[in-house]
């Protein structure tokens, strides 16, 4: 036969469920990294935008050489700007998830006490 139901409840409320909430929190944080591909963006921060790149001519053509250099530079700068923009969005999302998770995690732990308080405070207003 099982244990006392009250102990089981306490164990569930303050240990098992917080563990699940913590796992879900982790999943959301991991998902943020995946969705915004933050490590990949960091790794390819200076890569040309959408792999647009030009090849240097063979032989001595200074003007052409400069043209290719500038084109590649623009492609890389464009990539950098857009990636930084997306990385900032990703980091903001992660911060949001971190705080939301924090609120849910600790909110869950204090929820029973809040309910008791809410119920009795409500009754005290009524009567």
């Amino acid at each position, binding site marked *: 036969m099982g244990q006392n139901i009250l102990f089981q409840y306490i164990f569930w409320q303050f240990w098992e469920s917080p563990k699940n909430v913590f796992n879900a929190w982790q999943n959301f944080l*991991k998902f943020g990294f995946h969705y915004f591909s933050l490590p990949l963006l960091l790794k390819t921060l200076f890569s040309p935008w959408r792999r647009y790149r030009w090849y240097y001519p063979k032989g001595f053509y200074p003007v052409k050489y400069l043209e290719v250099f500038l084109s590649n530079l623009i492609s890389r700068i464009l990539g950098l700007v857009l990636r930084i923009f*997306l990385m900032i969005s990703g980091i903001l999302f992660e911060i949001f998830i971190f705080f939301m998770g924090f609120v849910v995690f600790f909110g869950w732990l204090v929820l029973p006490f809040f309910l008791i308080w809410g*119920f009795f405070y409500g009754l005290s207003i009524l009567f």
Partner: protein
Amino acid sequence: MDSQFYFNLKKARIFQAVKWGKNPVFRFARFFRKLFFILFAFFFFIFLNRSFPERFLGLCLTTLSLAIAFWILEGFFNSKLKKPELPVYREGVNLAEFLSLEAAEDCWEAIKFSRKKKLPEVPSEALLYFALKNNKEVNFIFTRALLYLNGLKNDLRTYLDALKGEKFEEILSPDSQKVILAALQTAQERGSQRIEVGDLIVSQSEIDPIFKKYLMAVNLKSQDIKNLSWWLANLKNKIEERKKFWLWKNLIKQGSLAKNWTAGYTLTLDQFSIDLSEMAKRQGFPDIIGHKKEIEAIERILARREKNNVLMVGESGSGRKSIIQALAQRSYLGDSLKEVNYKRVVRLDLASLINQAGNLKAAENVLDAIFNEVASSGNIILIIDEFHNFLEISGVISSYLALPNFPVVAITTFEGLHKNIERNSSLLGLFEQVQVEEISEQETLLLLENLSLFLERKYKIFISYSSLREIIRLSEKYLPDNSFPEKAIKLLDEIIIYVSQKKAKILLPEDVFKIVSDKTQIPVGAMETKEREMLLDLENLIHQRIINQQEAVSEVSSALRRARAEVSIRKGTIGSFLFLGPTGVGKTETAKALAAIYFGSEDKMIRLDMSEFQEVADIARLIGSPGQEGLLTTKIREAPFSLILLDEIEKAHPNVLNLFLQVLDEGQLTDGLGRKTDFKNSIIIATSNAGYQIILEALKENTIWDQVKAKLLDFVFEKAIFRPEFINRFDAVVVFGPLSRENLMGVAQLLLGKLKKNLAEKEIEFVITESLKAKIADLGYDPTFGARQMQRVIQDKIGNVLATAILSNQIKRGARVEIDPETFQIRR
């Protein structure tokens, strides 16, 4: 029963949930939660709009607190009390620990019932009765199986009411113990440790006689109940999992925003392709069923640094495209290998590209641009369907295929591979081959189950489980030319349209029989009265065309009856016979008669003169080769319900005979293009006149007929005409004896009878006299050629005379004609 069997529900942890489940706090938690949330919303609305808000604030706080409290209680009950920790399974463990809450509740009800009736043990019928009574989900199993749930419940109730006892003891009856053990095993097979109600029902279907009676009435087996129960469990699991949005497997379905940013644009490719990764996302990532081995092999090849192109070879309809879908899905969700994950799987639409470009030259330029984009984008897996049809592009694609960042999966058939691709060995060398086998019947059933839910919504027609099972069984048996799963899917599609046309609401097995019969021209399903009569009377029907040869006719008839009643234990053909005997004694005629009676027409006979296959090189003509259709294999693929007549089999090359060993044994043969050809629905008759001298001598010496066969076989082996393993593989070796004078008279009667019938259509009565029959028998018989000449004699001596007489108006309508047997002139 096992002495180690231990079952004590009251001591199991799940019993706490059974007990607390009856407590109103938990029992009505869901109701209270909803009620208090509604009240909270109501009071909150008033609180926002009233000038005296304090009291309503109090109401809001109280109701909200109660609503959340009941929500927590509900969660506590469902995730903690309902699912207590399970012990490790070992001998002597309390098996009640493994029951789910619902199953435990049913067992508890059965125990209470037995206590009330003072029964000495808990009967399995009580377990079944309460499992059926208390759970709505069994409706799913019973409705789909077309089983009458209320009837079974009533029968069980009547049986239980009739039970009487003296003293209650809380022990399970031997049958109940079996039920619990079998249910635990079923749960484990399902990959679960907890016994659900479905598992109890499955084990009851194996054990309970009342339940078995109901199953038999609708032609179902315990395995079918198991399939249905697993289908239900799978659906429940899927719904449960989808609700848990916080799980990684649900979150990852959203994909990634920036993975594509590191890849190049593919503007031209996008114009002429379908993005299968996007499609998988839109379809909500359907289940991947079967082909696990092939999918893994493809992923391994694609992950290589070099030679990372796949040539997927498989029959059309064997699920090659669903393998690609699975690849796209696994790559999208990051379930594949690191090198394959998060790639875009894109199918090139070559047909529309060539169509739009106008000519191949223009198409080549566009293709070059596309391939260039694929190579430089870095995140594309390119799929080319029907690759064998587009080998003109091999010049453009070859230079790209060697690049590591140009992974391609080309799809082709065995025929396409052998006929077209193998000719270009340098192109073939750039691919690694993966052969696709068709999926199993069980996997096809899972696929049909998923599909039928979609079709049911679309057509508003209920699809019974028995119909799905029949679709699989019959498409396996009668549509051997196609592969699973496509043949079953197409058949289901066709049948549901037929059912919607006739405005019925349920798709029944009868509808399946109707469509399969229409498609194959073979009567399937419950045997019709006419067909039963035909089979039971087969000997007489054949004897209407064959004189004498009792043994042959009886052997052949018995084999066919066995096949149609599906009691045959052989894996090979419907029947295979070796007819031995002199020429002109009715061997071929028997085969023709059989084709006409069993398959409906003499045209259903594939006749091969085996004297044309005397060389090893002739094998290719028989089973086909690239660029050449097989005389045997192609015909049998086109018309699997045929009689194959192998005339003069002794003249064929021994290697040709070896080919038939597999056909006779397994009922299948691999043709010259590597395709399996199915002979399971054909009858094979080989004829030979080898050793006919033995028969003639035996007749002269009046040897007993049973000894003739043994002598004949000795002769055949001695002269090495056939090897024993070849002879042994036939269902029967039938010796045709020479025709006696009486038999010849009979044959003459038969042939003259045909002539009489023809003349009767012209309203001319033809009189067949005994003397005429005797004369024809004399003239038509030859010891070497048997009765073969008889038809010619009738044609020459009688047919010609009658034709001249009819044309010259000597015989008119309504006339009565008799032929003089001596002069062969018309008697007036």
